[in-house]
């Protein structure tokens, strides 16, 4: 039953059938073959969607969309420019730092790439940066978003693995900042090699003005993280508060939100939610079939039987995930693989919070690994740079991101220190 469901799903995927229908039909075939009632399929879809934790996803999408419509994005980029624009190759750094600011709110790489890219890529071209470089740094920096909390992939991992989402959020903070720092290091190197100009340094008055303009937007992550960290809100409630915060700031403070823009944000939320949740529903059906036949447990026993050290297993898992992450988006990859891998992780004594950070970081790197990936496509569409040309400018950023992945894999303290402060 598992073999039939998995294989038929895989064949349909390889034939180019959209992911939810390939997996859904595969699961239906598996259930039918196993002589189980097909109502189980619908039952699994429904019960996967009927989840309080997953409600955080549409809420963070909505908060991000409102932030964009309400003029927060542009103010945050302005603040990043005032802070690091003066460096050589300043706009590369501005791009990366903007992503750090954004990621405190939206938590989706493709959304960040499109928000930052549409503001900064034209500006970078006007300032004389190569188009390919502008596109490459935008795509690479969008990786930071899903690592720095809040993060939609972390929510998915937490729900599938049964791990506290608040802890996962905290665990991503240090690795996310490390990734940003490493990418800025590469940006400095590229800037020197290409002889890029330094931006005009902002005067302290300009800096103050930029800070005041962006203060409300910059305060949003504090509300989200402070609430979760202090144990005041669940992540879902924090996401709802973030929506009201974005609404209040965009409407009352920035005065850029109106009914039409709010409606657009709601429509965007509905579509994104529909895509993610259908995928969650059908993969839950497949995971149920696999669990019924104890496939994850068998895998755990096999891997344990190899006698490899946890470090070696992590290396092998990382390589496998990097390959899987190229054609598959993080969301379906997490949904399919987390239930399969969890028993193995537990058996090897790997901390599931640490493993979550490794897995999410690994899979989002696939979003910018050429030739395919959501962030690459978004950036290619905005910048009109062919993907091949972007690839050439991208590789140093990609290489440093993979290096950070290895560091995060083998130094668990980077992920686990912050959550340990928050208590059990």
């Amino acid at each position, binding site marked *: 039953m598992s073999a039939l469901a998995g294989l038929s799903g895989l064949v349909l995927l390889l034939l*180019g059938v959209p992911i939810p229908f390939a997996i859904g039909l595969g699961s239906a075939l598996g259930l039918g073959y196993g002589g189980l009632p097909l109502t189980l399929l619908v039952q699994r879809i429904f019960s996967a969607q009927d989840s*309080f934790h997953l*409600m955080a996803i549409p809420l963070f999408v909505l908060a991000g969309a409102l932030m964009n419509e309400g003029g927060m994005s542009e103010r945050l980029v302005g603040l990043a420019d005032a802070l690091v624009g003066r460096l050589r190759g300043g706009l590369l750094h501005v791009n990366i730092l903007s992503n750090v600011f954004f990621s405190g709110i939206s938590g989706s790489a493709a959304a960040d790439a499109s928000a930052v890219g549409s503001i900064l890529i034209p500006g970078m071209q006007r300032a004389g940066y190569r188009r390919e470089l502008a596109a490459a740094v935008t795509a690479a920096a969008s990786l930071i978003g899903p690592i720095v909390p809040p993060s939609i992939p972390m929510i998915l991992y937490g729900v599938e693995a049964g791990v506290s989402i608040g802890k996962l959020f905290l665990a991503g903070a240090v690795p996310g900042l490390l990734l940003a720092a490493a990418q800025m290091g590469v940006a400095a190197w590229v800037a020197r090699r290409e002889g890029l100009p330094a931006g005009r340094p902002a005067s302290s008055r300009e800096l103050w003005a930029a800070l005041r303009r962006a203060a409300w937007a910059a305060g949003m992550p504090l509300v989200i993280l402070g609430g979760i960290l202090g144990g005041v809100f669940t992540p879902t409630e924090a996401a709802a508060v973030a929506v009201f915060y974005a609404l209040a700031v965009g409407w009352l403070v920035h005065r850029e939100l109106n009914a039409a823009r709010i409606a657009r944000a709601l429509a965007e939320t509905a579509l994104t939610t529909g895509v993610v949740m259908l995928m969650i529903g059908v993969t839950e059906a497949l995971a149920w079939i696999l669990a019924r036949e104890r496939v994850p447990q068998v895998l755990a026993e096999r891997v344990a039987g190899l006698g490899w050290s946890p470090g070696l297993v992590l290396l092998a898992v990382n390589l496998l995930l990097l390959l899987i992450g190229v054609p598959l988006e993080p969301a379906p990859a997490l949904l399919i693989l987390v239930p399969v891998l969890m028993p193995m992780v537990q058996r090897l004594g790997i901390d599931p919070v640490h493993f979550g950070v490794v897995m999410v970081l690994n899979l989002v790197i696939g979003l910018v690994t050429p030739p395919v990936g959501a962030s690459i496509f978004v950036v290619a569409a905005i910048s009109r740079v062919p993907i091949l040309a972007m690839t050439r400018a991208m590789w140093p950023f990609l290489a440093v991101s993979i290096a950070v992945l290895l560091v995060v894999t083998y130094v668990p303290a980077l992920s686990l220190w912050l959550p340990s402060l928050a208590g059990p």
Partner: protein
Amino acid sequence: MHLARTARAAQAGRRKDLARAAAWLSRQVDRVSMAAAAALAAGMTVTLGLQVLFRFVVRSPLSWSEELARYCFVWLASLGAAAALRRGLHPALELGTTGQQGRGRPRWQILGELSAGVFLLVVAVYGWRLAAFNMRQVSPAMGLPMGVPYAAVPTAACVMLLHLLARWSSPGEDGGEP
């Protein structure tokens, strides 16, 4: 001879009318489901906002808010998924650069639509059974018949089937919206 030709023309005309009706229905249903989904997203957010407000400010937690928000969410997800199908947003595996930017309808066209059709038919048929079966059960907090949230899944399947039918009957016209 002449009669046969007019009969054939009439048949073709009727097929065209049918295609036009399906396209029209698909468009109208999509408008309604997008509006409903947006309203549900707003409703879900407001409900959760009230939940936070009552817990921390008024200090008397609401009993029904979480449940209501979850059922809004289930319906939002279902209607959103249906609208996403009409816009071609459900992702496929990205093998090679052909699928990029989703312009045109690449390989997923025939096989994908067929697979989607079979899957959706299964979900629609068994989903209605499950929903009907659960009409007798009521939800713990609000006392709502459980069939109401359950009906979201087969409803979405039916809407998606309608969108697929509209696309099949008039292949020239792209069902997608900007």
